[in-house]
């Protein structure tokens, strides 16, 4: 297909341009960009462990992207993935800490449910406010991002703080039964399967079911959908809540699959990155998968910069921003 070939060529051009700009930045900082790119490639793509770490990073990004993509089909803008992620981790941690003796077959499904509910209820607030015609969901989801980490902060500095090492604000380790299973001796955890399932469900529901048709109809023309008898307000709340639930699962995965406890520094902005992934992908599931993987590679470049170039990890955000900048600048319509 020539169209697809064109898209690939365009993508290649964007990547090369962004990498060149970032190389110039690194050069200006007195670093060797070729070395940095080669190191990143060697660590992230050419070793089994590095590749597994990409999958680890991709997991929350995928879920956070679906959390944005699903409501966006109704024309809703969910900028609140970050907060929903925190609330999911919070609710899942509550499950793990309140049922310390429960076996894994009870605890894991329960924590999964709680993680989903935590994010879903958090996102339902903007959903309800929007459905009631009171406040635009863009503003509320954005503002609630900053409340959720403070709730987590209150608990990890306060009631849930460990006794054994009180210098570090975090909860006690979760019981063994509350840890997500990991695979092949790497940090890749069951959250990846959940994320892929979420993506599949998103695609299936949107493209193959009556519900998806209803939601897309609302996105196309809400007033017409209303007249057709589609319960628009109900769908607005539901779509935001389900999206928030997926972001909540991302938080649950980070707490129960990676850290094994709840910390305040749960996410380096996965929710915001997820927004950008979903937006760049235009909500298309396979493109979301590809973009999430690409962004995982980019963030892993941050590790390389830190370890072998002695630069702060955050510098990688320049590369992230450069790629987005080039794409946004191209997208004039």
């Amino acid at each position, binding site marked *: 297909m020539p169209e697809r070939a064109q898209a690939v060529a365009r993508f290649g051009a964007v990547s090369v341009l962004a990498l060149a700009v970032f190389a110039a930045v690194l050069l200006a900082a007195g670093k060797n960009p070729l070395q940095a790119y080669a190191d990143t490639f060697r660590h992230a793509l050419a070793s089994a462990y590095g590749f597994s770490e990409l999958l680890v990073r991709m997991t929350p990004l995928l879920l956070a992207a679906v959390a944005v993509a699903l409501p966006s089909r109704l024309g809703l803008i969910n900028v609140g993935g970050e907060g929903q992620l925190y609330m999911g981790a919070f609710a899942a941690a509550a499950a793990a800490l309140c049922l310390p003796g429960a076996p894994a077959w009870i605890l894991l499904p329960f924590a999964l449910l709680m993680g989903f509910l935590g994010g879903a209820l958090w996102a339902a607030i903007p959903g309800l406010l929007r459905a009631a015609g009171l406040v635009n969901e863009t*503003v509320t989801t954005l503002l609630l991002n*900053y*409340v959720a980490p403070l*709730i987590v902060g209150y608990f990890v500095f306060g009631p849930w703080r460990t006794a054994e090492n009180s210098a570090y604000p975090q909860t006690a380790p979760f019981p063994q039964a509350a840890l997500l299973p990991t695979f092949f001796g790497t940090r890749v955890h069951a959250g990846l399967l959940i994320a892929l399932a979420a993506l599949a469900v998103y695609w299936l529901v949107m493209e193959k079911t009556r519900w998806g048709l209803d939601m897309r109809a609302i996105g196309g023309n809400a007033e017409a959908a209303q007249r057709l008898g589609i319960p628009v307000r109900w769908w607005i709340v539901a779509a935001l809540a389900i999206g928030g639930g997926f972001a909540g699962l991302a938080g649950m995965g980070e707490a129960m699959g990676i850290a094994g406890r709840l910390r305040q520094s749960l996410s380096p902005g996965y929710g915001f990155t997820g927004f950008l992934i979903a937006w760049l992908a235009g909500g298309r599931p396979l493109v979301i998968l590809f973009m999430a993987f690409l962004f995982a590679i980019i963030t892993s470049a941050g590790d390389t910069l830190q370890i072998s170039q002695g630069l702060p990890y955050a510098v990688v*955000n320049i590369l992230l*921003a450069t790629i*987005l900048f080039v794409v946004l*600048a191209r997208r004039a319509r």
Partner: protein
Amino acid sequence: MTTPLLVALLAGAIVSGTPLLYATLGETLVERAGIVNLGLEGVLLVGASVGFAVTAASGSAWLGLGGAALAGVVVNLLFGWLVVARKANQLASGLTMMFFGFGASALIGARYVGAVIGGLPKWRPSWLADLAWVKATTLFDYDVLVWLAVPVALAVWWTLFRTRWGLGVRAVGENPAAAYASGRDPAVLQYQVLALGGLLGGLAGAELSLSIAMAWSEYMTAGRGFIAIALVIFSKWNPLRAIAGALLFGGAEALELQLEARGSLISPFLLQMSPYLLTILVLLAWGGARRLAAPASLGRTFYGSS
């Protein structure tokens, strides 16, 4: 040597409110022209890091202040090129600039972590120095940005609501096609307010690193850019209301510091949440009235008049 809580609180609210006010004024200008800039956090970070780096390298806080303002302008003009010239999505572009600010400030500041600077000079006018309850403390010694904060807010209000240029800016924010038809170029006006907004955002960042913290640390703005975005809504896109809002939100921050210093058992987290929750409550209160003061074309892209 304890100062009364209320005096310390007032002094603290003024200091903490100052960077919020500058950032809010900048964002108010930009939003009045119909643009939402979620990259404000990035502007603050770049302003803070450039201001600190220039000050540490040159030894002059005034040069640092200038550098911060200039850096803010550059970041906002990059954002402006995306959303005005390339007509890109404003939310995605703003988040892009936020990530850019995270990265660029970390890179610029990396060499200056732990550096010691003189900071902006602080003083108090003589009429204030004579007041008995002020005399006992150094709390009311402020730098130039604090003293100028309210006059700048008045100037921004006057410019927006009492000049032809301000009328043009507001017209673009309400209805760019009509502004275009009346002979104004929306793109030019939007670039102008973005430059001004970047200047004010850069100064807000500089106040944080050159005066309040007198140090650079990664992500030192800690969400103040987003508090300012909330504050714009809270103050209904009005620079005068923004003064009161900044004092209130700054007061929450000051109260948190005071309670912490006095060993209070009240959790600081609730206070930190208050700006966001208050803003949502305010939005709710107006939502019922269905009368938002927001510029009508906020967040929409103007594709031309044809």
